[in-house]
């Protein structure tokens, strides 16, 4: 550590412990998405914002796709008054990829208030992406007031139950789960009995060597239960996936990048395309981090993944682009 300069508080005008440098680091969480490459049955994920540093060989694999999350279309508070603009910036980054992704995954909170025009705007912006197929799972902001009926009509035509489904691409089995409905007082995200039974049945016939990618909005691991960042019955879901050699879990909800390995399972959370949220327990609440819009736009894409890893209490896998 001798060569590393110790951080100093340079300008702490608000006395909140966030100086300019700290602020820039916070903005590392406002990346735009994750570029995922399945290679040799193992999924690696890279921040879209750092692809210029990426070794082109790393982008080659059996399959590549992009995960975006938490667009919160309709949000217009100081943390980001132009969420449409930052989603467009994410699409521009997707379109600049040397290897066009096969499809996009959106891990929920497409809209901010479940309004039809919010979904319409996102659909319109995503039409501009090089990848035409988009697979969605709902966030809690997408199922307000109607228990997810509108979401199902728009995105879940071929889904089971309240919106869960699976599909296969190039030998990889993808499973989209819903954990934002029927939430109980004091509890976390919930999958529910019916969905768990479906999952058990869905993966039963698959070979153990089949790479599995599970995606859902709320993390399927306990990131920070005090803020509701976890899923009550995720252990049961993961138990059904124990027999597989390679399992990747992709989530959103927490508006920052985190990765963790547990046995055969690698967990990733994606950044939001809209606004950052604080690190677990590092603020009074998980509310949006307020920064001036022009600074947010200017800083989007300048990610410092090492910081997120280094400061994290959780075990984190190396996501550097070397």
């Amino acid at each position, binding site marked *: 550590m001798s060569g590393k300069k110790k951080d100093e508080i340079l300008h702490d005008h608000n006395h909140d412990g966030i100086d300019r440098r700290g602020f820039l680091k916070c903005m590392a969480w406002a990346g735009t998405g994750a570029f995922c490459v399945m290679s040799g049955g193992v999924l690696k994920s890279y921040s879209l914002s750092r692809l210029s540093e990426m070794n082109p060989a790393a982008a080659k694999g059996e399959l590549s796709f992009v995960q975006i999350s938490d667009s919160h279309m309709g949000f217009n*508070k100081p943390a980001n008054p132009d969420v449409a603009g930052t989603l467009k910036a994410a699409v521009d980054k997707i379109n600049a990829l040397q290897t066009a992704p096969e499809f996009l995954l959106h891990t929920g909170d497409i809209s*901010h*208030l479940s309004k039809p025009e919010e979904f319409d705007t996102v659909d319109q912006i995503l039409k501009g992406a090089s990848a035409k197929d988009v697979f969605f799972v709902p966030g*809690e902001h997408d199922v307000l*007031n109607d228990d997810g009926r509108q979401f199902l009509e728009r995105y879940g035509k071929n889904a089971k139950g309240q919106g869960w489904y699976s599909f296969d691409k190039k030998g990889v089995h993808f499973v989209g789960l819903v954990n934002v409905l029927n939430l109980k*007082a004091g*509890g976390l995200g919930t999958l529910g009995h019916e969905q768990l039974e479906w999952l058990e049945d869905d993966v039963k016939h698959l070979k153990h060597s089949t790479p599995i990618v599970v995606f859902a909005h709320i993390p399927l691991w306990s990131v920070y239960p005090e803020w509701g960042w976890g899923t009550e019955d995720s252990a049961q879901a993961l138990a059904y996936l124990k027999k597989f050699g390679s399992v990747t879990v992709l989530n959103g909800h927490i508006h920052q990048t985190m990765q963790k390995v547990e046995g055969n399972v690698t967990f990733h959370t994606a950044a939001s395309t809209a606004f950052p949220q604080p690190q677990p327990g590092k603020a009074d*609440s998980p*509310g*949006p981090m307020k920064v001036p819009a022009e600074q947010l736009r200017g800083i989007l894409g300048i990610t410092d993944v090492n910081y997120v890893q280094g400061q994290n209490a959780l075990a984190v896998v190396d996501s550097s682009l070397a």
Partner: protein
Amino acid sequence: MKRIVLVLSFAVLAIASLTLSAPSHQAFLVSAQAAQAATAEVKIDNFSFGPGTLTVSVGTAVTWTNRDDIPHTVVSTDGAFKSKVLDTDEKFSFTFSKVGSYPYFCSIHPKMTGKVVVQ
């Protein structure tokens, strides 16, 4: 100068009378509150209900105000009341007509819980 003395002495008198009549003054305040239609407020700040437990008398109208940048709901755990989603600065009111304990939560962020006790 004369005026200042006058004002000062009036102020002293006023304070003295307030101090002397403190018990009856309090009683007056309480009866005045009861005479109005009883209301109470719960503020939603930083993903929490404040106060977390609110005690009111029967007939009180409780109003919740969302002061966060993120939408919340106010949903009774046993189905007694349920708000629509409340965006920033939006309000929800419910009048409690029966004695009892009413636990509630935000159905979007279920870690947010609160309780209204009606006496």
